[in-house]
């Protein structure tokens, strides 16, 4: 079996350079590649284009890269909850491309699936469709949307094996599987790295073919953005 294991985040991020385009999995702070983000901060690479559904909060997730002004452009569907983001965006330091969430997910999948473009009804008649081709199918208008072209994809999984197979947990799955498909180099960090044969091949969410490097992550904080609970009775 092909072995994809690298020692740590440092080794996993070899080849990362200024000006590159990355995909980063996660929805809010759920399922984000914490170790890879920390390493990107350590590396200090700048002028990055980051494709990620959200932009973290001020002191966690992609917010850490924003604080160090490492990001030139964000491609996201929702970027609230982040004061530094707001400041950079309003001052024009940060470019922001806002994309409907379903279109973002499908564009990530298309990237990995060799589909250069597809039609979606989302955003037709809005400023999102400005300058884009539109077309009627079955009496309904649609917008032509294109694949991305990221150099790296950073994803976080629950379990992974040495062959790069991944299993996600709960809603921490979100954008991770499609982004794993899309990276020219896909780096997966996992909470638990196991030997081949330990994962049921029928239950694998992301087949190892999509993953170039995998490592055992450490020190996961898994911060909760909105802790909503029902009181104990």
């Amino acid at each position: 079996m092909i072995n994809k294991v690298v020692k740590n985040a440092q080794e996993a991020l070899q080849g990362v350079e200024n000006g590159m385009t990355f995909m980063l999995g996660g929805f809010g702070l759920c399922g984000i590649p914490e170790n890879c983000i920390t390493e990107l901060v350590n590396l200090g690479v700048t002028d990055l284009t980051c494709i990620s559904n959200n932009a973290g909060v001020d002191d966690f997730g992609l917010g850490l890269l924003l604080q160090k002004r490492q990001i030139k452009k964000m491609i996201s569907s929702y970027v609230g909850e982040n004061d530094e983001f707001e400041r950079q965006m309003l001052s024009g330091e940060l470019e922001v491309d806002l994309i409907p969430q379903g279109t973002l997910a499908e564009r990530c999948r298309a990237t990995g699936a060799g589909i250069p473009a597809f039609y979606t009804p989302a955003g037709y008649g809005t400023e999102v469709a400005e300058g884009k081709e539109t077309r009627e199918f079955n009496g309904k208008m649609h917008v032509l949307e294109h694949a991305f072209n990221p150099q790296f994809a950073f994803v976080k999984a629950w379990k992974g094996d040495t062959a790069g197979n991944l299993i996600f947990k709960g809603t921490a799955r979100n954008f991770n599987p499609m982004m794993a498909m899309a990276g020219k180099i896909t780096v997966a960090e996992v909470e638990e790295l196991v030997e081949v044969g330990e994962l049921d091949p029928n239950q694998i969410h992301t087949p190892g073919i999509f993953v170039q490097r995998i490592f055992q992550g450490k020190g996961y904080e898994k911060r909760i953005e909105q802790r909503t609970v029902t009181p104990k009775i």
Partner: protein
Amino acid sequence: MALTKQQIAQRIAQELQDKWYVNLGIGIPTLVANYIPEGIEVEFQSENGLLGMGPFPIEGTEDADLINAGKQTVTILDGGSLFDSATSFAMIRGQHVQLTVLGAMEVAENGDIANWKIPGRMVKGMGGAMDLVASAENIIVAMMHTNKKGESKLLKQCSLPLTGVGCVKKVVTNLAVLEIKDGAFHLLERAPGVSVEEIQNATEGTLIVNGEIPEMKL
């Protein structure tokens, strides 16, 4: 008496039908889950990858890996399922979700909706709203009839950047239930004690009042 937010949610819940999959937006729409009518089964879809969303977890059992689209910790019911974002929006785009309930800043008499951007102010993004309104067969907008200055939010034409065009068919506000068809708001029900005239005054868009308008039953 104009409805409270809870009551708007309560009235919208009456629109739920047995066996419907429902996506609830953030704010008033989220409250709809508290008023599911007896005797029907619906399932809530959260676009971050969850079907069969249950109530908030008992204190101490919350899981960072189980949140809803509003980033709140939630639970999953027996029979629920988890999936990735592409599959989630396949459900939405493919019209497998029967009802979308969401809030709006403005709705127009032709069914246009604006709820994501105010020029000159911080833009947070549309999230999944554009996919939802472009695809849902049934969209109910939950909103206040007027803004804080008392100006109508039910307009001839939206002034804000659109989220979707000609897609809204029903609006439930603090004052009324309205159907959008043939380029006009058709008044279906009044909030208890609210007159047709009050509703008329609070509605900038064309309002059609046909016959006696009943009060909502809550």
